[in-house]
Each structure stands twice: as C-alpha cells, then as structure tokens.
C-alpha cells in the first residue's frame, strides 16, 4: 500500500509539471512547440498504459534506457497522466475569459508572464475537479505497475492469490485497500474544490 501511495504521489507531481508545460506549449505562439505538444498528447493518450509500460520496460532497454521497475513505473505513469493533465489544463486555459489575457497584454506582459501570472492560476483553479478525477484514476492505474513486478497492492493480491486457495477474501481485501485510498481522495478533492475552485 505504501508503494501504491508513493507511485501515485510521485507520478502525479511529475505529471502535473510536465502536463502544465505541455499545455503551455500547446497554447504558445511558437508553432513547433504547439506541434510537439499535440504530438505528445495524441500519441501517449491513445496508447494503452499497459503497452507504454511494457514498451518502456522491455523495449527501451534495447536502447540502453534501463531503470529499475519502480522508477520505470513512475516515469511511464507520469508520462501517461501528463497527457491527460495537459488536455485538462488546456481546457482550463481556454475557459479563462479572453479579457484577462488581453488585459495582461495591455499591461505589457509577455506571453510567458501573462501565462504564468495571470492565466494559469485561474485556469488551474477552474479545473480542480477534473484534475482530482485524474488523480483518482492514477491511483487505480498505478496498479498496472504490478506488470513490471513492482510489488504494489495489486501485486500483493496477485501473489497472495497464487499462495492461497481462497481468492475472494484476498481480492476483497485488496479492493478495500484501494477504496480506502480512492474514496477519501474524492472527499479531499471536493473539499479543495469548494475552497479554491472558480465556477464558470
């Protein structure tokens, strides 16, 4: 269970940074960055997470890209989630009233300044709820790390299951553990949303 939490928190933090950067690229006035951002999002988002995990862990070793299972899982989970975060943040940016960006321009702020100090803070607050949804999805997705034999919750359940003849209690236990993570997260997200979110 600790492994699951660590996987989730590390990956989400990284994905938030990468995803926001990708979203910034996609709205920037620099065409190559826009294309690169779009390419990243479409490629990553449309590939199953399991394929990405195996590709990275078993395929990229051929390129000399070799990391231990846990690190690989964090890298792939971050990459995968970042594509979804990028799209969510971009939607948030689009939802910020145009006058805000125009006012920032009128004050003489550059693109980077207006994005960082005016638009993004509002955009992020708009999309708290969808981001929370992605966090919960990530908790569940982290179970795929068991494919790389990182021993997280699902991996534990799988091992217990092969060892015991009574799978139902084992699976109910693992399921309960996940619910113990996802349900309070949902409550926490709703709380944060009430505090900071901007309704539009």
């Amino acid at each position: 269970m600790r492994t699951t939490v660590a996987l989730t928190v590390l990956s989400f933090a990284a994905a938030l940074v990468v995803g926001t950067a990708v979203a910034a690229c996609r709205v920037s006035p620099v065409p190559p960055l826009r294309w690169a951002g779009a390419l990243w999002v479409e490629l990553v988002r449309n590939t199953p997470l399991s394929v990405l995990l195996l590709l990275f862990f078993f395929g990229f070793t051929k390129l000399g890209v070799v990391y231990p299972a846990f690190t690989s899982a964090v890298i792939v989970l971050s990459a995968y989630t970042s594509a979804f975060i990028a799209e969510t943040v971009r939607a948030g940016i689009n939802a910020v009233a145009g006058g805000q960006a125009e006012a920032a321009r009128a004050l003489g702020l550059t693109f980077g300044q207006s994005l960082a100090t005016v638009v993004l803070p509002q955009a992020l607050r708009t999309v708290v709820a969808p981001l929370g949804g992605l966090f919960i999805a990530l908790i569940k997705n982290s179970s795929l790390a068991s494919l790389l034999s990182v021993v997280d919750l699902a991996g534990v359940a799988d091992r217990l299951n092969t060892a015991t003849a009574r799978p139902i209690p084992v699976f109910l236990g693992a399921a309960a553990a996940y619910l113990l993570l996802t349900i309070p997260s949902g409550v926490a997200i709703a709380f944060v949303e009430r505090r900071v979110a901007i309704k539009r």
Partner: protein
Amino acid sequence: MSALATPLGDALGPRGRRRAAAATAVAAAGLAVLAVLAVNRLADRGQLAERQWEPFTRESVIRFLLGGLGNTVRAAAMAMALSIVVGALLALVRLSRRAPLRWLAAAWIEFFRGVPLILLILFTGLGLPKYGVDLPVYWYLVLALVAYNGAVFAEIFRAGIASLDRGQGEAAAALGLTYGQSMARVIVPQAARRMVPAIVSQSVTLLKDTSLGFVIVYEELLRRGRVTGEFFFNPLQSLAVVAGIYIVVNLAMSRLARRLEARQRRRYRAGSIDVGGIEDLAVVGAQGRAAAAAGAGGL
C-alpha cells in the same frame, strides 16, 4: 488552428512577432536536435536494422497481429454492449424511488468504479476457476470489463438524466404520465443525446483497457505483440507496432466522439455531460464547458 485561435493572443505586435520568430527558430532547432539524437540512438543500437522490422512485412506476422486486434475488438465490443445494458439497469435502480434499492445500486457502482480493473481481471481470470467456474478466457475478460464499465456507464447515464431540467419530469407528471412512461418517453430520449460523446469516449478507454487481457493470457493484440517480440527478439519494434495500431484505432474513435459532440452542440445547443473519474471524459467535458463559455465551438 492558427496562432490567433489561442486565447492568449490578439495578433502580436512587431516586438512580439520578433520574439515568437526567435522562439520558433530555437524550438525548431531544439526539437530537431532531439529527433536526430533519438534516431542516432536507434541506429547505434541496431534498432533500425532491416532485420528488426522485416517480420512486419511477412504475411503470417501481419495476420497474427491483426488476429490479435480482432480478438481485442471482439472482447471490447461484447463488453461494451453488455456494459451499456448493465449500466442502464444500474442507473435505473440508482434512480428508483425505493431507498434501499438506491443504496444498493450506489454501493455496487462505487465499489466497482473504485477498484482497479486489473484487480477485477485477475480475480475473474485466476480467482473464479478456484470456485469451479469454468469458462473460456474470453468470458473472464469480458466479465471483468463489464463489472467495471457497467458501473462507469451507470454513472454516465445517471449524470445524463440528472443534467436534464427538472421541469421535464415535472411536466411529464403533470400530463399524467406514470414514472415509467415519463422515463421512457420524455427523460431518456433527451438524456441519451447528451450521453453519446461520453459513451464514445468511454468506449475508447474500454478498448485500451482490453489490452489488460494479456495478464490472463487472452490472445489479444498486446499479448500477440509480446509473443512476436519474443519470437523475433525485437520487443521494441513489436510493441511500437502494437502502440501504433492502438493509436490509429483510438484516434479514429476519438475523432468520431468529437464530431458527435460538435454536431450535438450545433443541434441542441447543449453541452455534453461531465462525469468525474473517467479520464477521457474529464477532458471532453471540460472542453465542452470551455467552448460553451467561450460562446463558440472552437474545438
């Protein structure tokens, strides 16, 4: 989409244009360097060698992989159809007027939505046989997919129904329609339209999730890709090909979802619904709202 379509720009002034041009040059150069480095690395490690890619021109390999795709689609289609039925039933119970039934459905939905799919697949595939259930692997996978996606679809349906104006149900009641009649003739037909993009979105997710079937040795695309990789010692190429196939199929489906949503917004001036906890859907929903806020379909 031109630069002007980004919300952060009116047309740039002369200084901004110079800056953007400089940034474009730098970014293009940087990306080109990255691409060259990647290709070099691939070449250095012999991963671009013809030997590594040649298998994918053989008819037997192509047929093997396409067969895997066929199995993936077969499982996904069956799971989708059953999930929609199960989801509709669950949603109806969830909205029933008998409180205990409502709670039961709510608990069922929250449980299966909150549990990782892989756990369900491991359970049906490895757990059920120990209780004397004996089915082809196909059905273990479908069963797990339905258990999970049925709950998700139930939430989609409920959100769709909840998104309708209360007045619709009240008006139906005022006309003397029974609960069942008003559901069947007034509520559901209207709600169904709003759900279509969400349903297609979730179908993309479902198709991707079908790849988890390989953990219980269902012969789907990912498993066959791995087998190919082990047989020809080219896991990188095999898995890349598999990823490519998924991307093509899913892009086609996503495009369909977007088109449906755009058409719906034109026709009914109603955005799609928004259901938390579904990755793709969070995106579609947020974009829908954003576009609605902007007052123009800029998707």
